[in-house]
């Protein structure tokens, strides 16, 4: 179970997240939408430990991150958290000096201490799943944006995360590729993965997310099933956003 309770994040006196709470049941996808500056990227960075939380808790399976922990205990738990959470960044951040396979096996081999052979076998399975088998020995600099994204997904999944985070996955894609990405993500959900996808494209989330969290100014305005939020939003601000988005 992934559970976020009263999550707060301040930069100085500026509070970006003002007490966010939600749950993501296993094998489901949560779509987080909201305008730029609503705090959804900061939420993602709190979930993978890149930002230190200022209040509340983040729970991913057995790892429980609390703002009140001592510095050393917090750091220890962030380390554990990062093993449970995989991230696909908006700009992917593939390692340009490593081949596609090298990108995927780097962390399994050096962090999990998986045998290189085993890691490579898993990597080729993942590459097949994301449809990138042909590019295994190539370097990121020679891949298109969509190809890089698929490699980034495979790289994150190679660590067997309990939760996969995707930050604006549609920003680099044309509509046709958006569709195939949606299908790809769904197959991984069917295989047992849990995801949080940050996007401002309602159209994309509609076909892939089970639940939707609508954020505005660091507040979770609306949370519900995709169907409910899309078709009968309760809050006026959600209605407003959806009407402008379409």
């Amino acid at each position: 179970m992934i559970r976020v309770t009263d999550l707060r994040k301040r930069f100085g006196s500026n509070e970006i997240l003002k007490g966010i709470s939600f749950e993501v049941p296993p094998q489901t996808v949560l779509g987080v939408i909201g305008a730029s500056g609503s705090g959804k990227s900061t939420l993602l960075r709190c979930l993978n430990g890149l930002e230190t939380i200022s209040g509340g808790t983040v729970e991913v399976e057995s790892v429980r991150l609390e703002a009140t922990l001592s510095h050393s205990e917090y750091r220890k738990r962030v380390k554990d958290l990062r093993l449970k959470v995989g991230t696909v960044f908006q700009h992917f951040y593939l390692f340009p000096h490593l081949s596609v396979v090298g990108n995927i096996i780097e962390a399994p081999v050096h962090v999990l201490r998986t045998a290189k052979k085993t890691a490579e076998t898993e990597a080729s399975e993942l590459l097949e799943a994301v449809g990138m088998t042909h590019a295994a020995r190539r370097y990121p600099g020679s891949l298109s944006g969509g190809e890089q994204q698929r490699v980034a997904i495979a790289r994150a999944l190679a660590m067997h995360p309990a939760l996969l985070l995707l930050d604006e996955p549609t920003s680099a894609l044309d509509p046709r590729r958006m569709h195939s990405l949606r299908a790809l993500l769904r197959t991984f959900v069917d295989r047992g993965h849990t995801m949080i996808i940050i996007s401002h494209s309602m159209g994309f989330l509609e076909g892939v997310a089970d639940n939707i969290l609508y954020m505005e100014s660091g507040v979770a305005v609306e949370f519900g099933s995709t169907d409910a939020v899309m078709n009968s939003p309760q809050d006026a601000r959600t209605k407003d956003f959806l009407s402008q988005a379409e």
Partner: protein
Amino acid sequence: MLTVQRLTAILLLFFCYGSVAGQRVLRWGADPSGGAPYVFTDPANPDRYIGYEKEMVDALAQAMGRQAEFVPSDWETLVSALQRKSFDVIVNGLEPTGDRAQQILFSKPYYIFQLQLTVRRDDNRINSIDDCKNRSVGTLANTAASRLLEQRGIPMRGYADPVAAYRDLELKRLDAVIFDVPAEAFYARNNPKLKPAGAPFTRGLYVIGLRKDDDALKAEVDAAIDKIIVDGTLETILKKWGLWNDAQVEFQAPIRAGKESAKVEEYTNTNVTFNWREALWRLTRAAAVTVLIALGSMVIAVTLGLPLAVGQWKGPAWLRGLCTIYVEFFRGTPVLVQLLFLYFGLPVIGIAMPGWLTALVGLGLNYAAYESQVYRASLEAIPNGQWEAAYSLGMGPLLAFRRIILPQAFRIALPPMTNDFVSLFKDTSVAYAISVWELATAYRELANASGQFLLLGVAVSAFYLAMSLPMAHLARLLERRLRDRATERVEEEAAA
């Protein structure tokens, strides 16, 4: 127009006055640094030069009806300075060697010198030059002593002045030092840490050097030498400086009796003529030392540069400050001064490294400062997203740095590093200042001994290029290999 004419007239007048009313001058060149008792700066009055040869030249000039004018110069470049007409005669305890005879003219001899071997007071291994076989011996470059050592195959280190040589003997960088007795008497005999090993040996002559075509001046100088010997002026000067001895009595007797003076040929036992095969062998040895210093200091620069860069980049404030001080100190002061400090300054606190090691360490410390800045710029050029991607895959800071950041930064750093290392190869030449036998020292000493500045210059340049070109080529290959990885796809597609 008028002013120009007036100016010309004034200048003409000035020159006429100079030649009519003033005396003709005798411009003489010598090296006054560490030059006692020949010619050196008066410790009591630093504006003045003193020395027995200074007094002798004054007496000679008087006998010639000229005004002596001293031109301070470098011992090793005296012959070429003479040929460039910086002065008209060399008076600096010059020995009439065979290779010099090919370049310049010699006057009659004026002094008989002997050599003295000096060792540390507590050292009883060496009692004569025959005991020096596998020891390192220092002496003045291009002298009877240096030739004697070469002839006997004794490893020799050439110095520009006796002060540095005797100090290195004290510091155990040398096992023995050989100098002409006048210099030895002045610089070593009263040093409680040193002692003479055996009696003075070998006899040689001091002569005055002149330009090849200057026969008229030679006649004038020869006559003047005879005159100050016959009238006892030279004897008075030598006695005053404690340099009068039996050898001088023996040497001056026939001249005073109106007979011919000693023939130069009788004293040519230390002649070594220039030998190309020998010179190339010595250049090769010098090249090996150059490579050793360059590679060694590269290793230091590369390994020390990284912690400096990281300290300055990510360290706490105090460490950043320390690293910045280090970098600014080594970048902001000349490497030559740093080497001199390491070589002459550190022994004061008990650290006396041999010359080649001093050069290796000094250049390494110096270049580490430059490398750290190359690394820092390269590390800072890696986008923060690379760190975040590594962290979010569960890597710790060290693993992320070693596996993700460093390899990328290395690619960026490679071209400027290559540049620095080619220039490091050339900078090994500053080791000349601390008497290390590397290529630049070899060039200077061999060329000064032989006058073969042009040919030896070409040979030495070839040695430098033979070392730096392959390295530049290697770096280019490596760069291309790294670059090709990123672009292979593009090339594949272009080919298809």
